[in-house]
């Protein structure tokens, strides 16, 4: 009978143990699974870019004798074209290397027989300079459709663009034409013996609706330090750049018709000739390649000390080439560049991140390079007449550990900075994805919240556990616990829409109350000591002391309010925020770190309070008795015996509060302006990692860089809380071994 009984209970024990193990294991597996899932989304950020060689074909025999001016490739690497000096566009099949079709450029200018040069203006638009001196535009576009059998079928179209037509006469080395919609056009011609002529054609419509075109022209008069080796014009036709044989980069403003203004003449290569020059997408940065392989990017920056004038400054240094950089080609999609040296080594680099994305080696020097309209295909034609075609897979060129965690010199900034600005309206925007301001924001919010919450929660817990009458305690504790159950949306909502405007009105009173109330409390406590232990008054108030403090706190608040007004008028001339801005240069945001401290503090106080109170209450009575019997006051006992004994528990309470504050999303989202700035000021807002995820994930395109960076910040948050909790637990165990048991 007895044996049966023990057997049964043993079996039950084993079953319970098994169940607990399974549940525990399940929790661990679930947590690890979450980590794995979010890491899997973030990880492709760091995969190396890929280039797959698709074809390597030689020029069709029909074209062997042609003078080729430009090449192009379609998005799917099935067809490429080459434009020859006779104005014929030859479409070639990349799989067989056969000539599919030769299409003449439509509407050639009258009398023109040959094309002198061709310039890729944007995506598929080319400007052709004819032997007569006329420039015309042609669009050579590919489009692909998916057939019923699932293959993609590529078709092409060659069409004239009358907008780009710009008459001219004479012999030019190269010409650029930029049309400005509705206003006219500008044309830059590079003539023999380093002369550069700019021609403006402006269209005006008079009162009667008659169009009147005026043309003016002028030549660059500025003395050139050496022969011009490279010229480039931006898309708006505002800035003209030229590189020289002795390594100077010159920049002119030609935006005003009839006016050519030299803005810069900067040594950019250290005497080596500028051999390649091009503008990065967005036309702000200019990439310079030189005769020694040096490869840098520059943009105008407000020079320190000098007034408004902007000077070209070297902002990025890209991986150098081993020999003369012969050409630079900007990506049509992002701030990447394709460049090639005189030995046929092709580099693909990202300017902002300074990442060398790919290096491709051909056998022969490269004569021409082309990217498809979306930047997915790369095609080169070497001097021996062989085409090489690659498929590029560079999903996240702008992301690197450097851009995520380091200072980056973004276009338009005066110095390298930590910036988070993930998106903007325009396509050529430079995404700025530094996690540093967000990590900073998270830590700032947490720090201020803990500063506010920890003293309140711990002192409250100490009082409740050691002094409060048991009957009162049995009501107060559940009340505080209910506080923890308030949805954080509600707290955030109140903080953002009620507290922020309120504190906005009484900032000074808010600050003063942090001084006045504690001081008044201390004074009260001082007088309190005059009340003798066990006197009738003491017995009556025992355990309810805080009731006396309530009116004191109220009076303190009122005093702070009064004083705040007086101080504002007397010391700060009636407007504290104005004073702050004009004297200290500190901007006051309505939703600032004070609001966060209070709102987030409000959320973590119940958590810290409850756990700490439990730990403090668990300190055995006989320890307090021992202390009291040695002549310690109750306060001394609480401070010197109870608190140290409960330190492990109190510590984990604080850490759990910390973990909660770090991960809290809604409150931070609603109570701050979500400005990702790095300012330690208590008057400024912030943006935390978690709030950032909530704000941006709806805008992030699936599997895009932003999307993955957000997941990366989630991983970071995960690791962050994991480390905090692990360290907290380890420390707790240590404390426990060393001191308390509770």
């Amino acid at each position, binding site marked *: 009978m007895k044996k049966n009984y023990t057997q049964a209970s043993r079996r039950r024990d084993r079953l319970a143990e098994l169940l607990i193990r399974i549940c525990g294991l399940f929790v661990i597996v679930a947590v690890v699974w979450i980590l794995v899932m979010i890491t899997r989304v973030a990880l492709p950020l760091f995969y190396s870019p890929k280039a797959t060689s698709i074809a390597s074909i030689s020029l069709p025999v029909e074209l062997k004798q042609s003078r080729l001016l430009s090449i192009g490739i379609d998005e799917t690497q099935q067809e490429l074209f080459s434009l020859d000096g006779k104005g014929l566009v030859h479409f070639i099949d990349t799989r067989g290397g056969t000539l599919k079709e030769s299409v003449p450029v439509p509407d050639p200018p009258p009398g023109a027989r040959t094309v002198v040069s061709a310039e890729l203006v944007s995506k598929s638009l080319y400007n052709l300079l004819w032997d007569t001196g006329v420039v015309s535009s042609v669009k050579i576009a590919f489009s692909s459709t998916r057939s019923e059998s699932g293959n993609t079928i590529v078709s092409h179209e060659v069409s004239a663009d009358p907008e780009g037509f710009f008459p001219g006469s004479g012999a030019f080395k190269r010409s650029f034409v930029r049309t400005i919609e509705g206003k006219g056009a500008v044309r830059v011609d590079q003539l023999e013996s380093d002369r550069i002529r700019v021609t403006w054609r402006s269209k005006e419509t008079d009162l009667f609706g008659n169009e009147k075109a005026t043309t003016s022209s002028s030549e660059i008069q500025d003395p050139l330090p050496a022969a011009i080796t490279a010229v480039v014009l931006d898309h708006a036709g505002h800035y003209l750049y030229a590189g020289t044989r002795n390594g100077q980069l010159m920049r002119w403003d030609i935006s005003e018709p009839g006016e050519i203004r030299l803005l810069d003449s900067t040594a950019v290569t250290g005497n080596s000739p500028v051999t390649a020059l091009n503008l990065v997408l967005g036309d702000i940065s200019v990439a310079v390649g030189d005769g020694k392989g040096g490869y840098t990017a520059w943009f105008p920056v407000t020079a320190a000390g000098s007034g408004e004038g902007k000077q070209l400054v070297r902002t990025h240094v890209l991986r150098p080439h081993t020999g003369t950089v012969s050409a630079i080609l900007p990506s049509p999609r992002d701030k990447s560049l394709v460049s090639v040296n005189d030995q046929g080594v092709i580099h693909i680099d990202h300017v902002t991140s300074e990442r060398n994305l790919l290096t491709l080696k051909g056998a022969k020097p490269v004569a021409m390079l082309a990217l498809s309209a979306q930047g997915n295909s790369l095609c080169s034609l070497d001097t021996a007449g062989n085409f090489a075609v690659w498929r590029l897979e560079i999903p996240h060129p702008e992301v690197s550990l450097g851009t995520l965690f380091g200072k980056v010199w973004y276009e338009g900034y005066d110095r390298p900075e930590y910036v988070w600005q993930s998106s903007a309206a325009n396509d050529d925007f430079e995404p700025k994805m530094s996690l540093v301001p967000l990590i900073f924001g998270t830590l700032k919010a947490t720090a201020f919240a803990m500063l506010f919450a920890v003293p309140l929660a711990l002192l409250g817990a100490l009082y409740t556990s050691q002094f409060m009458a048991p009957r009162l305690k049995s009501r107060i504790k559940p009340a505080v616990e209910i506080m923890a159950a308030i949805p954080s949306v509600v707290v955030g909502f109140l903080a953002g829409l009620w507290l922020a405007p309120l504190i906005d009105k009484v900032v000074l009173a808010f600050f003063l109350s942090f001084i006045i109330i504690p001081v008044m409390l201390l004074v009260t406590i001082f007088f309190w000591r005059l009340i*003798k*232990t*066990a*006197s009738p008054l003491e017995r009556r108030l*025992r355990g309810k002391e805080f009731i006396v403090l309530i009116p004191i706190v109220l009076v303190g608040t009122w005093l702070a309010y009064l004083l705040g007004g007086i101080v504002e008028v007397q010391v700060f001339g009636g407007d504290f925020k104005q004073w702050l801005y004009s004297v200290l240069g500190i901007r006051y945001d309505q939703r600032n770190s004070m609001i966060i401290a209070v709102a987030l503090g409000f959320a973590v106080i119940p958590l810290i309070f409850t756990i700490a109170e439990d730990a403090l209450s668990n300190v*055995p009575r*006989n*320890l307090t*008795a*021992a*202390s*009291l*019997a*040695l*002549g*310690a*006051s109750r306060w*001394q006992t609480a401070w*010197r*015996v109870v608190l*140290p*004994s409960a330190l492990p528990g109190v510590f984990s309470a604080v850490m759990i509060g910390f973990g909660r504050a770090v991960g809290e999303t809604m409150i931070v989202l609603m109570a701050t302006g979500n400005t990702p700035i790095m300012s330690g000021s208590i008057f400024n807002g912030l943006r935390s990692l978690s709030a950032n995820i909530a704000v941006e994930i709806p805008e992030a395109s699936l599997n895009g860089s932003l999307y993955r960076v957000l997941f990366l910040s989630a991983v970071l948050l995960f690791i962050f809380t994991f480390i905090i909790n692990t360290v907290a637990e380890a420390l707790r165990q240590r404390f426990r071994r*060393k*001191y*308390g*048991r509770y």
Partner: protein
Amino acid sequence: MTVPTHNPASPILTVKDLDLFYGAKQALKKINISMQRNQVTAFIGPSGCGKSTLLRCFNRMNDLIDNVRVEGSISFEDQEIYAASTDVITLRRRIGMVFQQSNPFPKSIYENIVYGLRIAGVNDKSLLDETVERSLRSAAIWDEVKDRLHDSALGLSGGQAQRICIARAIAVNPEIILMDEPCSALDPISTLKIEELIDELKRKYTIIIVTHNMQQAARVSDVTGFFYLGELIEAGPTRKIFTNPEKTQTEDYITGRFG
């Protein structure tokens, strides 16, 4: 202020007509007893008869309990313990206490001993060091712990911990040490050590001890008081109480016929 002159013959503690109520319930009834300097007084009696309650009156530890009402008088030398003018903190420093369950603080041995001094504002390192050694020697534990003064006191055995608690009480130099069943949680050898210690300590201190162990009371005490249902039935020299008690209740209790 007059400096109290200690007449060796006059009692150090005198309890007169002491009644104590926990709410409506009377726990002590008309207690009259006095304790002599440098003597060990033992309180014996069945469980719940009020021994601990009386002991707690001497250092006013009862203050912490709600609804306690005390009537009558206890004088400590010529000072009335329950007078409104009595400073509880000084009183407790002069009348130390050792509890049934050893209760070292979760601090180092050193910090345990100097706790009483630290809360009184003493921070002089040499004075503290000196006190630690003196107290630990007095409590006969110096040799056992002198090499690990800065280790946690929680790592000590029950008997060692109890002697640390005695040393902690001695450190503030009290005049009276109250001991509430100090050996009830200890093994016989530790008990013996503590009993020897009490014998040592009475040369300097006055000791009042509550015990359930008759032999212990007989061995260590000079005077014994027998309590029953809140009343002090009989008090007198230990030898007399144990050999020739006046009251039959006392005799019954001592011979183990009840309780």
